[in-house]
């Protein structure tokens, strides 16, 4: 379904994109101005089949809202709620948002208007406009009734999908996937047929998302940037493992030509900009909102030891300026990959040495800096680094071992 993006196409980026944009947009692009919401405030399921779907989804929401994988920080939850308020259109007040601590580049909108944002998405967003863009896209699925339209479309095409079969596919079933399992949702959301939209519906969500974004004063170009980051990350991840990328992600899936889609998003973004109106990415506001969480978000990603993806993410975030936290995580990426032929240990050591030059270097940067110095036989300098670590983190859980390394 999802044609792999050819690396050749990416390499000839300029020409390739231009060609794709001509081919993709001349016929198929859905215009943002045509994208009016199909539901208003306080919408409830009307038809019998939709009512059944809602009942099912209410059970799913009950599961999700009770999950202990949710990040329940009230400030952050409030912040996400505000974003839905900004880009949720007429149904903004009806929508609920849940933040799950799962390091995946994904977000999912359910037919009843609740959305699950995975923490891996927050990690990758450079500013509020990017995050609002994803939320706007997901809101558009709800506002355009995509879930029920997709479902009816599938039923028309094949009778196999009776309501019960769909129910089984969504809420449990033979595959052992039940929608309350957030990890599986994050990784395999694309497999849940109900949440898999066809090309037209995705194009609608893109067009409407861009429009909602611009109407709220966000830079509408943010959506194509997000898309570009996703492609770049998948490609670098695959390249480091010597293969072509194969994973697809719910937000941007099912499109034969990702380039065309990115090009459409750019054209649409230019189209919805009003002359004289100011658009902002709200980077400062975003960084302030996730400041407490960012070290954890990076840690959750880097420890997965997917070096291509992690490096892409760190480099992308560093476009807004390097700091101690990012340099530290750069060191972590190479330490965990620990390839001898690629000299990863030396690269890791450089990362930590660079990190501790910044005032915001986390205590762990000093510890790892010390360990690398110790392994290089520079025990005097190592001792100083360990001392700094223990001074910054006097209650560190590994203090006893670090003290042993200082004397040993």
């Amino acid at each position, binding site marked *: 379904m999802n044609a792999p993006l050819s690396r050749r196409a990416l390499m000839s980026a300029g020409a390739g994109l231009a060609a794709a944009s001509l081919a993709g947009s001349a016929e198929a692009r859905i215009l943002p101005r045509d994208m009016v919401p199909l539901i208003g405030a306080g919408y409830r399921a009307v038809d019998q089949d939709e009512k059944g779907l809602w009942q099912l989804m209410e059970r799913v929401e009950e599961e999700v809202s009770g999950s202990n994988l949710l990040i329940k920080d009230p400030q952050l939850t409030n912040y996400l709620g505000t974003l839905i308020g900004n880009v949720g259109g007429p149904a903004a007040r009806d929508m609920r948002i849940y933040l799950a*601590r799962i390091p995946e580049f994904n977000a999912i909108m359910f037919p009843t208007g609740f959305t699950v944002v995975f923490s891996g998405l927050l990690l990758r967003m450079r500013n509020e406009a990017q995050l609002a863009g994803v939320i706007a896209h997901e809101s558009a699925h709800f506002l355009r009734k995509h879930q029920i339209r997709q479902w009816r479309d599938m039923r028309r095409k094949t009778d196999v999908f009776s309501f019960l079969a769909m129910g089984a596919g969504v809420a449990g079933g033979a595959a052992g996937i039940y929608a309350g399992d957030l990890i599986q949702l994050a990784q395999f959301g694309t497999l849940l047929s109900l949440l898999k939209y066809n090309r037209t519906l995705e194009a609608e969500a893109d067009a409407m998302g861009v429009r909602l974004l611009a109407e709220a004063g966000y830079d509408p170009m943010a959506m194509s940037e997000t898309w570009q980051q996703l492609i770049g990350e998948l490609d670098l991840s*695959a390249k480091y*493992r010597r293969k072509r990328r194969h994973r697809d992600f719910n937000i941007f899936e099912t499109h034969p030509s990702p380039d065309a889609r990115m090009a459409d998003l750019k054209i649409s973004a230019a189209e919805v900009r009003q002359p004289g109106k100011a658009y902002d990415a709200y980077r400062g506001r975003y960084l302030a909102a996730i400041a407490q969480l960012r070290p954890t978000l990076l840690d959750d990603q880097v420890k*997965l030891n997917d070096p291509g993806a992690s490096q892409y993410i760190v480099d992308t975030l560093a476009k807004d300026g390097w700091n101690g936290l990012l340099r530290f995580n750069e060191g972590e990426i190479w330490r965990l990959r620990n390839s001898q032929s690629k000299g990863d240990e030396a690269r890791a050591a450089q990362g930590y040495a660079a990190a501790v030059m910044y005032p915001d270097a986390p205590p762990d940067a000093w510890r790892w800096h010390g360990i690398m110095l110790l392994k290089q036989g520079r025990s005097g300098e190592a001792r100083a680094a360990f001392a700094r670590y223990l001074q910054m983190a006097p209650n560190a859980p*590994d203090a006893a071992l670090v003290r042993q390394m200082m004397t040993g």
Partner: protein
Amino acid sequence: MRFKQSLLLLVAASSLPACASSVGGGAFGYSGYSLVRVKEVRVGDDSMAVTPPREWNKIAGSLFVDIHAVEDWTQNGPYLDGISFVTGLKDGKALVHQRSRDDRQVPKFRSNMTPPEIAAMIESLFRVRAGAVDFKTVSLAPRTFMGANGFQFDYEHLDGDEVRRKGRAVAVVQNGRLYMILFDAARSHYYNALLPDFEAIVNSARRV
């Protein structure tokens, strides 16, 4: 090394072909357990011997997820508790079998690793292979193991199945190889109930 989710999925997906070609480590076919009696037994590649204080169940080696130097035991089944023995893992090898093209990989063991590096390797094992979304170091401290200067690593994790688990690993690197006994169990009840067994097993461990 035993892994709750991945292991069970594999069993479901491929039990038939695996049965046909069973080389299960001393057990009956693929999905079997064999009894570990209360006497000294050799584990892993037979280079370590331990004496359990009561009977345990050895999980038959899986062709797909296990490696030779690792052996797994359980009392109540792998979802609830388990002890893994790592006997002489060599430089450049990982704790689990994995393909070089997997996106996410458990870091390889290196002979020159310090205890924090081995602890980090264990953390990635749980994050990559067991779906841990939160992982906290409770303590990392020196400890004598099999008569040598090793370390003890205590940790807690929250996994994708929403269960909070707790673990302790005791390890040492000798002659460039990793020897380790790792205990991991559901935090409520099972960890505390079986910790004394684990301690007795660790204290009984010797190189053979």
